């Protein structure tokens, strides 16, 4: 079976994630879109692993999952602090630092 559909799907998912990061305002949703980008990369890694016939890509996918989990811990902590301080998780409201 051809690998192309899988790579195309991963590219579409990655693009949805990237566009989401750039357009959404809620920090949690922005963060979810980043996770979508990471998972799109995982799909590409696993597909290429199958194409290349070695396991490097699948192992990398595991590492990406672990890193994504660590990122959630740090990221949600930061977003929670911001939300408790400002009563808002909108990335547009946090605009004290500019120019």
């Amino acid at each position, binding site marked *: 079976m051809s690998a192309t559909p899988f790579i195309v799907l991963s590219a579409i998912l990655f693009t949805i994630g990237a566009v989401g990061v750039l357009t959404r305002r809620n920090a949690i949703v922005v963060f979810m879109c980043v996770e979508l980008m990471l998972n799109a*990369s995982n799909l590409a890694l696993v597909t290429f692993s199958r194409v290349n016939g070695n396991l490097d890509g699948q192992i990398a996918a595991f590492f990406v999952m672990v890193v994504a989990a660590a990122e959630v811990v740090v990221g949600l902590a930061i977003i929670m602090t911001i939300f408790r301080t400002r009563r808002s998780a909108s990335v547009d409201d*946090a605009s004290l*630092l500019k120019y």
Partner: protein
Amino acid sequence: MNGFDAPKIEYFQVSPILIVLGVAVLGVLVEAFVPRRRRYGVQVVLALLGLLAAIVTSVMVFLDLNPGSDSPKSGKVVAEGALAVDGPALFCWLLILVLAVLSVLLFAERHLEGGVLSFAGQAAALPGTEAEREASTRGLEHTEVFPLMLFAVGGMLMFPASNDLLTMFVALEVLSLPLYLLCGLARRRRLLSQEAAMKYFLLGAFSSGFFVYGIALVYGYAGSMGFAEIAQAVVSSTGSEGLLLGGIAMLSVGLLFKIGAAPFHAWTPDVYQGAPTAVTAFMAAATKVAAFGALLRLFYVAFGANRTDWTPMIWVVAILTMVVGSVLALTQTDIKRMLAYSSIAHAGFILTGFLGIRSLNEVAGGSLTGVSAVLFYLTTYGFTTLAAFALVTVVRDAGGEATHLSRWQGLGKESPLVAGLFAFLLLAMAGIPLTSGFTGKWAVFAAAMSAGAWPVVVVAVLMSAVAAYFYVRVIVLMFFAEPIGEGPSVTTPSVLTGTVIAVGVAVTLLLGLVPGALIDLLGRVGVFIR
């Protein structure tokens, strides 16, 4: 039944990384088991001892390479091909570790805030609430900043030594995640600090998403994560060219974000301004070294063979970075923000040296290679910027650090010493002769010229002139303007910050007067192994 071969780890060569990460884990245990009163002392001593031990082992590994002898070993690929311990990696290690020791001293400064660290007493207490006031009257402090910083240092050591894409990604995250947290922990101006942390985190996660997709594409092209295999595949150009070019572009997004190069620089001013100044100093000095080390290795080792494809991209990025950094710095009114834009401009100058890539047989004996020039500039800039940010922490008013430029008016009358040292560091950043900034700029420009990147060098020289204007503007402000109102006051720091400032100024002066020894050394270690 298949036999199982245990992976072979060369513990001697990787010991600096293991020591730093091990001490960081110990630091977490200290938080759990040592009573609150003693934690500060234990953490500081532990962090310093760990970093010094890592410096000693790095020097031992370095001497093992025998760089001075007739037949120096170029290095060793260790840990089943995950890490390459060679000249540039070891130089980056030593530089990062020395900068980290100085940063620990800055982190540990308690004198300026009246007996507590300059980090939030209790990060979970909301700003302006009873809980925050209570935390400050009880003198609480987060000594977790020391283990967090050591984890970041561990990632920084792995980053320039990583010899495959997966290790590089893990190192990138290990160095970034603690930094995101440290940025949000300022004691004063906590809203700014939290905002900086959120911006840094969201943009950092976004850029590492690109980095991972780039890994996937290059893996699809080469069929392997290892740099040596990728280089092999690039030479024989086996796979589809589109995958490779897309992969290179996306990997460079991730790395150029970390070094703060335009157009991926937008986070730099916000984060440098909002983060606690000690953290800003650490980021500006050490993160740049790690990220440039990784950028050099990735592009020179893995993608060196098709450099005609990616050097035009770096030309554009380098020019854009220098112009954006220098021009926007002209309009800044906050000293930390101005230094942030100056760091963007410096990233552009270093990228100019990065363009000095040539194939090995083109390099005439004794001439500066791109690697040596970049590492030399990183050394000069690291110490200068660390001392400059350390000086920013001592100029204060009732609300903490007085970072607005108008508050610096007439500082020369209030404290000639602080104003004089700061002026000297600004002149070094501008690249005035007899300072390390001049020799650094000369090194990167020479390397870029010999590789034929003269248009970039012309822009770089012009932008140095623009940059000199805004550095001199601050000096004029400090010495030739009358103070507004009461003017700024200079708090005498403890010996910790004093040491950082003294070392930074001394290295800036020394590398300006006698750069020869370091350049000779770099000429011998500036070759990557594959």
